[in-house]
């Protein structure tokens, strides 16, 4: 059976399955879908981009563009599933669902469903946890140290707890599965535990247990040029901005598609739509852009229930230097794209526990120990009731070759903590994700030619007034930064097949009339330009209005 025929939005697809699905979709919907390779990964896998638009209503390059991507981080496979679901939905529902139809008729919808193609494959086929790429980074060789490993062969890397008088953990009084912090005043007989990642020690000398070494430390989302910092300041940064073929492919794709005005990068977890800026507060961002980010953020909250927060608000807390983020910051700061990071899957929220999506990390660190424990109990209850007990492995004795008797247990790091398990919960996430991004896509600017008033003034001379409209919610420039960065240079009107004697409104440059940016929905969503032209009655004048981000529209005017 083909991948297309058996497509299930509640499954995580392996690389080969994804590739087949995309190829089958491109073959099945030739007028709506094109598939291209935009780069090759470190291990040589193709990185795919699909372009979805109805070719009959114009080429993608002449339509406002919208980009989704996923799996900048290897383990955040919910994002990849959401991207594939979106592509599949738009193609299969074209002509049936009015939103899918309007998107493909009026916009170019781009999707790069899997960036960390190597990392996702490792994540789905082994117990390994990794950030982006299986490449060894920052050290090419593995030094002695503690390495995460599936010691008991159950297919997961969980936690090991070891009884120790100086341990910093103890067992909860209500739910014996839950480990809670031993408080400074806990001086009773215990037992107290030390907790380690399930694993073993390279070069074990029988002495102190060293910190965990994570050999795959590259983080694609710290490899973008905006606010890039070297490894010492920003772990995961890579040797220089866009050093990785995967990030460079995505960046090049975005730069070459100047019609992309808005962008969502799918990530997990938390259940929050994150927006720039990541390194400063909202008082230090253009207020029109802030307003746009917030209005679209509200769309997300209505569609998905997930709040929208600035990355700075979500993660910044006293004592932490501002987090420097990745692709969305670069897209916004350098290119003025209205870019978001969408953190899917909110197990905390579903369990009724506190999550950073609601109160930010600065709220989480203020929680009292009693609240933290209450949250832990709620999550275990969620595991029992909603995950059928599969999310948490109870502590099980294991004879560790180096540490002696330990117990292994804890949360499934992949399909409870980082992603929903396959099935209904995953379907719920991917449909939520798409319900927002489809609306976001349709909020992009789109040019239209409105009224045209032509009047003969005698002698083959005509006065012609043209109304150029923006029918989208967002302004043609999308953001003010796009104007500042020269990524948006205004609407250009051209008049062909007639001699222009004079014009009013706009500035003439290189034979085109630039009328500036046009606001989104509201009283300023149109601009007029008028011409005095010479032509003969009955001849046709070709009018074109074009904007990098708002598309190209053409109109023929027959002179009366």
């Amino acid at each position, binding site marked *: 059976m083909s991948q297309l025929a058996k497509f299930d939005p509640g499954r995580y697809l392996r690389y080969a399955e994804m590739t087949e699905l995309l190829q089958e979709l491109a073959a099945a919907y030739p007028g709506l879908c094109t598939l291209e390779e935009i780069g090759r990964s470190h291990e040589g896998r193709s990185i795919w981009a699909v372009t979805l638009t109805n070719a009959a209503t114009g080429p993608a390059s002449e339509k406002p563009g919208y980009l989704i991507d996923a799996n900048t981080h290897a383990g955040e496979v919910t994002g990849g599933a959401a991207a594939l679901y979106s592509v599949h939905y738009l193609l299969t529902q074209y002509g049936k669902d009015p939103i899918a139809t309007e998107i493909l008729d009026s916009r170019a919808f781009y999707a790069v469903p899997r960036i960390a193609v190597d990392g996702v494959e490792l994540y789905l086929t082994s117990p390994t946890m990794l950030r982006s790429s299986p490449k060894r980074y920052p050290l090419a060789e593995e030094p002695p140290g503690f390495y995460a490993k599936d010691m008991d062969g159950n297919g997961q890397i969980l936690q090991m707890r070891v009884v120790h008088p100086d341990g910093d953990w103890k067992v909860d009084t209500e739910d014996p599965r839950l480990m809670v912090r*031993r*408080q400074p005043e806990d001086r009773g007989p215990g037992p107290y535990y030390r907790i380690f990642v399930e694993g073993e020690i390279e070069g074990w000398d029988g002495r102190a247990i060293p910190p965990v070494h994570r050999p795959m430390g590259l983080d694609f989302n710290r490899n973008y040029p905006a606010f890039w910092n070297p490894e010492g300041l920003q772990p995961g940064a890579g040797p220089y901005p866009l050093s990785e073929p995967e990030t460079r492919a995505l960046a090049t794709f975005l730069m070459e598609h100047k019609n992309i005005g808005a962008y969502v990068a799918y990530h997990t977890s938390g259940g929050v739509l994150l927006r720039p800026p990541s390194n400063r507060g909202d008082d230090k961002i253009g207020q029109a852009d802030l307003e746009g980010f917030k209005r679209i953020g509200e769309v997300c909250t209505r569609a998905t229930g997930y709040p929208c927060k600035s990355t700075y608000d979500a993660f910044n807390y006293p004592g932490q230097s501002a987090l420097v983020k990745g692709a969305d910051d670069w897209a916004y700061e350098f290119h003025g794209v209205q870019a978001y990071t969408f953190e899917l899957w909110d197990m905390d929220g579903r369990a009724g526990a506190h999550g950073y999506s609601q109160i930010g990390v600065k709220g989480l660190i203020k929680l009292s120990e009693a609240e933290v424990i209450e949250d832990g109990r709620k999550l275990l209850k969620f595991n029992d009731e909603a995950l059928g007990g599969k999310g948490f492995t109870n502590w099980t004795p294991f004879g560790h070759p180096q540490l002696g008797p330990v117990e292994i247990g804890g949360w499934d790091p992949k399909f409870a903590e980082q992603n929903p398990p396959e099935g209904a919960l995953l379907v719920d996430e991917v449909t939520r994700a798409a319900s927002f991004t489809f609306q976001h896509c349709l909020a992009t600017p789109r040019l239209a030619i409105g009224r045209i008033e032509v009047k003969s003034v005698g002698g083959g001379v005509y006065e012609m007034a043209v109304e150029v409209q923006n029918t989208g919610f967002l302004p043609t420039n999308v953001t003010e930064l796009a104007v500042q960065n020269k990524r948006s240079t205004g609407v250009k009107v051209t008049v062909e097949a007639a001699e222009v004697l004079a014009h009013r409104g706009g500035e003439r440059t290189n034979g085109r009339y630039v009328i500036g940016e046009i606001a989104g929905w509201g009283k300023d969503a149109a601009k007029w330009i008028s011409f005095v032209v010479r032509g003969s009655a009955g001849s046709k004048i070709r009018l074109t209005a074009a904007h990098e981000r708002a598309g190209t529209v053409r109109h023929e005017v027959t002179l009366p």
Partner: protein
Amino acid sequence: MTLTESQAMEILAGYRSDKYQRYSEIEACLKAWATLYPNLCRLESLGQSPEGREIYQVTLTNFATGEDTAKPAYHINGQHHAGEITAGAVAIYTIHYLLSNYGTDTKVTELLDSRAVYVLPRIAVDGAEWYFDHPQMVRSSPLMYPYPEEREGLKPMDVNGDGRILQMRIPHPQGDWKVSEKDPRLMVRRKPEDRTGPFYRIYTEGMVQQRTPAGIQPSYDGRAITGDPGGPYARELGFDFNRNYPTNWKPQHRQAGSGRYPFDRPEVRAMAEFWLKHPNIGGAMSYHTRSGMNLRPSPLVGDDKMNPFDLAMYKQIGEVCTRLTGYPTVSVYEYFTFDYDPDHLDVGSWLEWAYDERGVQGFEMELWDWPYISGVKKRPFKELKNLSDADREADALLQLQWNDKELDGAGFINWHPFEHPQFGMVEIGGWEPKYLGQNPPEKLLHQECHKNCLFTIEHALSLPLLRIGEVRVKSVGSGIWSIAAQVCNHGYLPTNVTEVAVSLKATKPVTAELKSEGRIVGAKGKQELGQVNGRGAGSTSFWGSNHSPVTEKWTEWVVVAPAGSSVEIVVEHDRGGKVSRTARLNGVEG
């Protein structure tokens, strides 16, 4: 004077944790404790006050398990401020509690066996006596400061001879106060639209003094009443010991009470000199009144500018305090600051010196919060400024109700007429300033003492504690031995206690020394091991905190020595203590 055991027992039989003590009573108790518990308690005087009183301090530790200087130490001090006599009472109670529970209470026993506790119950010894003997308030010292003589103007005095300085209200058409409609005892601010009296002016109970040929003395020309300091403090007695520390010290015109130069007060300097000679002090508590809040650094910057590790440790220990006392632990800057103008932040305090200069994890506990126990919400000071008159009235009503219910109304002296020699008929009344406003009534003193004592025990027990764990001796050739030793920190806090202590060079690295009659090959006999984490280290990182911290380090030596001889391993750190272990060189060749 030395006491006999029976004299000492008699003195201590009279000790009560619900009574404020005079200097002589404290002195007697301290001497009695030192007499009755020679193995647990030593008394010394760190110096003398300007009026010749001793600055007493006791050292509490089980001397059988080692000298105090070889143990991690905790410092408790009270009464930088003379009138905050609750502070002295809590410190004295702590001595009582530790000595009378040693051997029966496991925590107390562990504390005195493994750590040293220094208690300096009363710094402002002269001021406290003055406070007991006079109706006036005094900040730290009865010495005249900043002016050498009295000043003209309204001087707080007990004009009606009831032993207290309250308030005087005088009817006046341009008065700025009126009687609350909700409780006739309560004065509320006159609103701009209030046009029907009576209205009052309110002054501190006192007399106007003027310069006369005979000097400054009560005298009133019937004109404006000036010089009311706006509160019950005698403005002549303006030394503030808690502004006399060198850290960020500013002169008097920038920081009231700071003294002529840092440490110019002998009481303050005596304690500081003791600290400088005792680098084993890693944690400390300074008692004050009143707010019911445990203050932590920083007084000068927000939490975002604190060292993140130190902030995390302060919060963890601060939560212990909240669990035991009910008092929240708050940053001085974030919570306890009225005026954020950088020129107006209080500076030169003990807390700044303890943390920012000595790297000690110190807290300043503001004991006693009677508005709060009356039901008034605790608010950051910056919010207090913005309270409406209606909020203030509601809060005051709660306090009056509590006073009526719990104190049978004794805390508020109702307005009563008095023929003032200078102003004619006035009414005198208001809140009891010393034994309600500044300190709890004695019947509520014990609970204040007990719960805070319990917190300091936990805080002291969270200090680092170095121990030698495993020692592995292996023969690696004829008469050649490899010796490896595990150095453990059994405390919650790291050996350095704070990270700023390391950058300030206020503490040194852990050292491990091998002493042998033989020859040590390769490495030095004494090795520096840096600092050793405590078990609290794992709670500092928010993300990925599921890998427990390493709270031990290993060190090793190779020594050439005859089989059967002994080596001694000595592990030492200022704040982690000093321990040693002897190992015999025998075993199979490896």
